[in-house]
């Protein structure tokens, strides 16, 4: 018997909607569970107290410091590299084998799994350059990890700057670099910021890279050569070794909401940027 196409459409559609609903449900359950179990334990003292007893009690202060330290280093290294790459690709060169090579490099780099980056950072920074398990090794490896994100978003943002601005600046006697520094980059700033925020989010959630480059010392790092345990690594250890389920949940809540908040902010910023130039 052949089904009426309308009937089969209705059947298939309800199935598709159900699957979509199921996917959303997974997301909601994850977020709600982490919130309900974790948020009540998050307090000012949880954020400002150092962990005691391997994290069984106390807060997560030292891991917040380590996270901020490592992430800031990664962003400080990756942003000039990424924005510079984007400026070169969009403003200084036409399509050629060189630009294709650069884009290809960025694309491939984006696909390299974090465990490979961790191995690489471990052998180059920790061992060969002798930085040890440290904020420096972790930050530099993370910089490589987020570089493609910053390149991609910066390139999009710079391309979205109207071409007329460049013509106007040129006719006003601005050199190419003056045009970029005074008009193009400021106009693309929201887009670049988006990329930076996404990168921070990515860095916050990273574990595999940092386990092998930044180590897991619980002490608050005070120099670039100190080992540091980031929030994500701390959460991993708390959860995996069953040290403290409540503290694991609370750490997960802080971690997840920072990342989701950053991603959401980045998304709205990008939307606004797109509206401004369209």
């Amino acid at each position, binding site marked *: 018997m052949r089904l009426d196409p309308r009937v089969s459409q209705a059947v298939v559609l309800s199935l598709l909607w159900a699957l979509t609903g199921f996917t959303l449900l997974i997301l909601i359950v994850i977020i709600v569970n982490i919130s309900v179990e974790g948020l009540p334990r998050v307090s000012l003292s949880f954020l400002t107290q150092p962990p005691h007893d391997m994290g069984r009690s106390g807060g997560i202060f030292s891991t917040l410091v380590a996270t901020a330290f490592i992430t800031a280093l990664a962003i400080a290294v990756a942003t000039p590299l990424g924005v510079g790459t984007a400026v070169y690709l969009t403003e200084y060169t*036409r399509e050629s084998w060189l630009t294709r090579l650069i884009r290809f490099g960025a694309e491939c780099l984006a696909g390299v799994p974090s465990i490979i980056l961790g191995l690489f950072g471990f052998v180059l920074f920790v061992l060969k350059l002798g930085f040890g398990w440290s904020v420096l090794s972790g930050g530099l490896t993370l910089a490589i990890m987020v570089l493609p994100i910053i390149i991609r978003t910066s390139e999009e943002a710079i391309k979205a700057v*109207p071409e*007329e*601005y*460049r*013509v*106007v*600046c*040129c*006719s*006003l*006697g*601005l*050199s190419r670099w*003056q045009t970029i520094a*005074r*008009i193009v980059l*400021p*106009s693309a700033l929201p887009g670049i910021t988006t990329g930076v925020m996404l990168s921070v989010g990515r860095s916050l959630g990273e574990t595999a890279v940092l386990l092998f480059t930044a180590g897991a010392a619980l002490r608050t790092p005070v120099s670039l050569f100190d080992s540091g345990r980031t929030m994500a690594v701390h959460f991993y250890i708390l959860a995996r070794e069953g040290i403290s389920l409540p503290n694991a949940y609370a750490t997960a809540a802080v971690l997840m909401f920072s990342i989701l908040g950053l991603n959401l902010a980045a998304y709205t910023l990008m939307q606004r940027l797109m509206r401004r130039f369209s």
Partner: protein
Amino acid sequence: MNQSPPDKIRVEELSFWYGGLKALDRVSLSIRAHEIFGLMGPAKSGKSTLLKVLNRLCDLIPEARIEGRAWLDDLEILAPETDVVALRRRVGLVLSKPTPLPRSIYENLVLAPRLAGRPKEELPAVAEEALRAAGLWGEVKDRLHDSALRLSGGQQQRLCLARTLAMQPEVILLDEPTSGLDPISTAKIEETLFQLKSRYTIILVSNNTKQIARATDRTAFLLMGRLIEVGETSQVFTVPRDQRTDDYISGRFG
């Protein structure tokens, strides 16, 4: 006037290609100092291309090819050793679409003078003078630090003109400056041009023949990259030497 003023700009046998597409075909003409020179012609006749050559904006176009020569006074415009930035400061351009930069009105005006090395304390005066010359001072003097994007279309275009004036160029190129504007704004801009004539050489591109007739001293007619006719505006509009010019100004094509 029995002695004709000296030529400010001279173009000889100028041809221009976008890739394989020929946009200008052996154009030769001269433009005198302190005149308003009109360039008219239908779309894609090469008017805008000619402007872009005169301040070397054509450098931005990939795959462009140029033959022929052009001079601004004694400066050979197309010579490779010519300092393009200095050239562009002498030859200002106003685009057809109002294009204020996403900064304050004041910043738009002083960007070029500042980078050209004008002392900081002179900048407010430069901005005021340019705005007065463009007839915009009265409307914006109280909100110089507002975003330029908040001005109306006509105001934006006069700001662009003022921005060019603030650079204190010798020649001003206007590429259909009133194409998107209402009649009142258009009239204001035309009026401004008359007042600027004594201090600048102005080249006005327009496909509005009435505007050319109203506002210019001499006129050239371009068609498909060729110069068809050039002469005093009154002569071109009353007794055109070429049939095609006649057809164009009487609205039979274009």
